[in-house]
């Protein structure tokens, strides 16, 4: 295995590839700290998509003409690129969806609805995103299965003793976030997957906040399913990935039907095409697949180890600067390898929405609300929090601006 390259990023030249970061509102340059919601898109990714439309655009599959062959090749090769990036065995295990949420729904409907019944248990975590929580909640209601939630402890980590209690022989699937979009916690997803497998259950890992900023190897995790979104990793919106182990995907019935996913159709019945096309009916997101392919090239050129280390360093800096303020409450684990590149917090005496509006006066883009984790916020005892989340192009100076702007809120609300 090659040595981890942890050389600091050349943020100045990275920023040159993001014209949007130069935008000003009211004469102030944007400070973009809303990366857990969506990341900005570098020029090479935008160029790859516009080149595709200018030069290669056609519908894919079974086209006999040159352009269709080229578009088909680009679309199919994007699957190979993703497979290589996340350690999957091949394109058969990589299904393009529109986002992480669709990946959750695909498994919930195609597998859950058929396999679950009364007495079966679905184990989630208290820090699940609504993408998984709401989806499994509905599938459980329809099938009569039970849902249990692995507790989050006071430090914002999963209570693994509780996980060992909950995951039993009745458990059919364990679905967990790899990195929490609210607490920043990096969960022990390998251990959770092992626990699931010890009881013949499957594991579904939501990697929406993990794949963008750390090396991820689905084979090393041994996850049965793993989902993520293109737009949180310097890629375009409208494309996500569901990884699934080939034998499982082969057994599963399709979730959406239509053209492009069939082998043979008569007026009476149809048979399904090969993986992954069986799960990609209709004209798919071809330009977005090309964009995702380019985003992976772009990220790998920088190096996922370096990106992880850059984000950890920014998260540490933000955590320490905010914690030093004394009137700031921060949620989630202390900085370190168990925290991803985001910090959710509240300023004493100021509602998160008011604070975020005031930060917007300084053209600082952060997010306020429940971050699609309402039950977790209920548990934290707050209605909302403000979240600053970082990516490759962010700097310490931007965090300094955020911390300095808190004074405005203090003065207004004093």
């Amino acid at each position, binding site marked *: 295995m090659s040595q981890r390259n942890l050389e600091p990023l050349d943020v100045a030249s990275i920023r040159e590839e993001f014209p949007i970061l130069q935008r000003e*509102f*009211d004469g102030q340059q944007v400070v973009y700290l809303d990366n857990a919601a969506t990341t900005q898109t570098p020029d090479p990714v935008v160029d790859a998509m516009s080149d595709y439309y200018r030069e290669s655009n056609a519908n894919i599959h079974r086209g006999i003409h040159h352009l269709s062959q080229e578009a088909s090749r680009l679309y199919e090769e994007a699957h190979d690129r993703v497979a290589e990036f996340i350690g999957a065995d091949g394109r058969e295990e990589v299904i393009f969806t529109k986002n992480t949420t669709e990946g959750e729904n695909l498994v919930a409907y195609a597998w859950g609805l058929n396999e679950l019944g009364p007495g079966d248990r679905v184990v989630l975590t208290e820090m699940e995103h609504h993408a998984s929580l709401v989806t499994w909640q509905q599938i459980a209601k329809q099938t009569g299965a039970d849902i249990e939630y692995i507790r989050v402890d006071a430090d914002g980590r999963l209570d693994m003793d509780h996980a060992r209690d909950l995951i039993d022989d009745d458990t059919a699937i364990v679905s967990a976030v790899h990195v929490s979009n609210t607490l920043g916690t990096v969960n022990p997803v390998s251990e959770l997957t092992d626990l699931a497998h010890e009881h013949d259950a499957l594991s579904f890992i939501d990697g929406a906040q993990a794949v963008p900023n750390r090396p991820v190897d689905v084979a090393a995790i041994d996850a049965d399913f793993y989902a993520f979104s293109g737009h949180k990793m310097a890629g375009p919106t409208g494309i996500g990935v569901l990884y699934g182990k080939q034998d499982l995907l082969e057994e599963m019935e399709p979730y959406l039907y239509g053209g492009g996913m069939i082998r043979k159709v008569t007026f009476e019945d149809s048979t399904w095409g090969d993986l992954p096309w069986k799960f990609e009916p209709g004209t798919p997101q071809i330009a977005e697949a090309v964009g995702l392919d380019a985003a992976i090239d772009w990220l790998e050129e920088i190096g996922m180890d370096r990106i992880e280390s850059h984000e950890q360093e920014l998260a540490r800096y933000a955590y320490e600067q905010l914690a030093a303020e004394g009137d700031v409450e921060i949620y989630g684990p202390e900085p370190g390898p168990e925290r991803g590149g985001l910090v959710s917090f509240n300023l004493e005496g100021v*509602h*998160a*929405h*008011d604070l975020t*509006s*005031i930060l*917007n*006066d300084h*053209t600082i883009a952060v997010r306020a*609300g*429940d971050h699609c984790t*309402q039950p977790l*916020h209920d548990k934290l005892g*707050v*209605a*909302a929090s403000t979240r600053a989340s970082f990516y490759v192009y962010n700097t310490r100076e931007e965090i300094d601006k955020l911390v300095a702007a808190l004074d405005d809120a203090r003065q*207004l*609300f004093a």
Partner: protein
Amino acid sequence: MGLGSDMYRQQILDHYKNPRNYGQLEDPTFTHIGENPMCGDEIRMDVELENDEETIERVAFSGDGCAISQAAASMLSTELRGKTLEELQAMDRDDIIDMLGVDISPMRVKCAVLAEKVAQDGAAIYQGDLDVEKTTTED
């Protein structure tokens, strides 16, 4: 400065920090509650009518949430005195924004109109025109 800074003019902050008519009435003609689930804003409005059963004599509000939702509730509680239920029902979001006297950024409008919606729904329930337990404003 942008919309946001205008949003926190002195009048709004004053109503937020020193809310008028905060609390609950001893003998309200009707009471209603509402929430803005995304923000966690919650408002309870108590309204007491005069003997004509249509003129608002007294209003009190309670709850918590962001400055915009709470200041709007405080201002509305003052504004509604002497108005009829018909006049209350005729109010819309523009009236609330005029009352606040500031530009409200699009995402915060639902905070601003929460108290108005709660008062209107409360009145509609009292008059038998509506049947809901709680008002919610969604985005």
